[in-house]
């Protein structure tokens, strides 16, 4: 009621500033408390994980689970790193992630360039094929893919997962790139054509460098997806030497089911790279996820 009369009194003012009445200040405090509680709920399980990764078994099972570690056992991390192939899984994750990300972003950039910059009749149809790809559940393709890679002798080979990651990430990557390419001015490219520059030089030396901001966004999104992927690795890779961190830690934990300290350290090792990337690049990640989903 009071709010409304205020509004009416100030109706002639061109731009209205919100009034900080007692009521609105009280409301704000309540809102902050709610938002804060949600933030704690989102972050506390991870803090708890960090705590028990630094505890010994006796401490975990006798003390309160909310307690801080008495004397941090960093050796949990070194033990885990040297045991159970965690270092190898880590390397495999890096390798598969990097190769698949480079392949995906490069191929997607080629396609987006051809669709937004070049003239051809089937461009709409091809774009449609890529966009429908976003809705396809991976499980509906799993059995034939397994047979396909078996036939090519690629089961239990990193190439099988690299290729699958590329295929399934191309649609989203193209979608994010597309929005950016539409905003790029064509004048520079047109001038280059006038000067007799070849199309490949235009792509590699003019367009691609101009798209670095959006490329960094797609790289991070792809990196997060590939680093965390589970189903394909679990299905296509059987020998330890090619397993990635997600599947590797799953097996490792299965073997050491009761050593909570070791499990905590293993999980922390698997999520630290992503958390570091997020810490430094959070704006790009947030932008990328927003761009990738809103434009659908």
């Amino acid at each position, binding site marked *: 009621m009071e709010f409304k009369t205020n509004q009416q009194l100030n109706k002639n003012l061109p731009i209205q500033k919100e009034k900080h009445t007692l009521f609105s200040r009280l409301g704000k405090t309540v809102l902050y408390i709610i938002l804060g509680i949600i933030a704690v709920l*989102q972050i506390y399980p991870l803090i708890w994980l960090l705590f028990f990764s630094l505890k010994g078994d006796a401490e975990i099972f006798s003390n309160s689970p909310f307690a801080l570690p008495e004397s941090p056992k960093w050796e949990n991390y070194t033990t885990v790193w040297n045991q159970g192939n965690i270092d190898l899984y880590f390397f495999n994750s890096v390798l598969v992630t990097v190769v698949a990300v480079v392949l995906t972003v490069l191929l997607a950039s080629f396609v987006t360039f051809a669709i937004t910059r070049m003239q051809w009749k089937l461009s709409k149809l091809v774009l449609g094929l890529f966009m429908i790809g976003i809705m396809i559940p991976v499980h509906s393709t799993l059995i034939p893919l397994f047979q396909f890679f078996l036939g090519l002798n690629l089961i239990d080979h990193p190439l099988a997962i690299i290729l699958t990651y590329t295929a399934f990430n191309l649609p989203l990557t193209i979608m994010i790139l597309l929005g950016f390419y539409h905003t790029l001015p064509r004048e520079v490219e047109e001038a280059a054509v006038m000067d007799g520059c070849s199309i490949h030089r235009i792509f590699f030396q003019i367009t691609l460098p101009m798209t670095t901001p959006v490329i960094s966004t797609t790289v991070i999104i792809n990196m997060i997806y590939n680093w965390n992927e589970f189903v394909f690795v679990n299905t296509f890779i059987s020998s330890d030497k090619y397993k990635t961190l997600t599947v590797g830690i799953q097996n490792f934990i299965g073997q050491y089911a009761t050593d909570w300290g070791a499990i905590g350290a293993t999980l922390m090792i698997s999520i630290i790279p992503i958390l570091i990337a997020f810490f430094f690049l959070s704006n790009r990640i947030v932008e990328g996820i927003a761009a990738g989903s809103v434009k659908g």
Partner: protein
Amino acid sequence: MNKVMSNKTVIALYVLPALLVLIALIYVPILMTGYYGLMKWDGIGEMTFIGLENYTKLMKDAMFWDSAYHSFLLAIFSTVSLIGYLIISLILASKIKGANLLRKIYLIPMLLSSVAIAQLWLKVYHPSNGLVNSLLMTFGVDNPPAWLAEPNLVLQALFVPIIWQYAGFYILIYYAALKNIPDSLVEAAKIDGANPLQIAWKIKVPLIAGVIKVTIVLAIVGSLKYFDLIYVMTGGGPNGSSEVMASYMYQKAFGTYDFGYGSSIGFFLLIICLVITWLIRKLTATKEELQY
């Protein structure tokens, strides 16, 4: 200009590699799944054509319908929770301090692998040392349930980490959409005497209707094909009480090597996802036309 920009060889060179990967690894497999679904086949031996037998078996398979029911419950649950995310985003986007930091904190679980989340939540739900039961015991509950071992609790217990994982994702999407609304529209409404609730409900929400539609599709389709977390945390158990369509398909194909039957489930899943996407787009499209 036009001559250079419509060079057929260059277009083929730029588009074909990606297109081949897409067709070979997504479109051909979908067709093959449909084809395998008509076969009796263990993945290694002879394939026998049995027509729609897998599908008639599927229609009578109580375990499959249970799993479909669980997926459906998850879809409803996820869709309803979108309302909560929308409210949080409306608060965050109303120019409050710290909104940027908060939405980043909310997003963190989304960045982690489902396996790590699953293992973490297995510990959270641990009957004696887990966070949930320790908390309950401090509050004087003597015999808190073993959440993941109780057939009538396990599904609800699994919904919590799923919510935890995706909340930040949807809040981020809504927040980004709300931030795109031009200030002038909100200012105009304020001058006309609209209160913050009216501005939120009558102006902001309708303006991001398109984005809300996308999130509904994402939530429903995402729920129907949901797999990782449930597979790692319970494997569909105890006794199938947390089995969902994707985990049932995986178990049939790679657990019991019934590739024909597994394929029919996979194909069914694909059809449901595509039909629901189409249906939601169609339904919400008519609504929008009626409004304006």
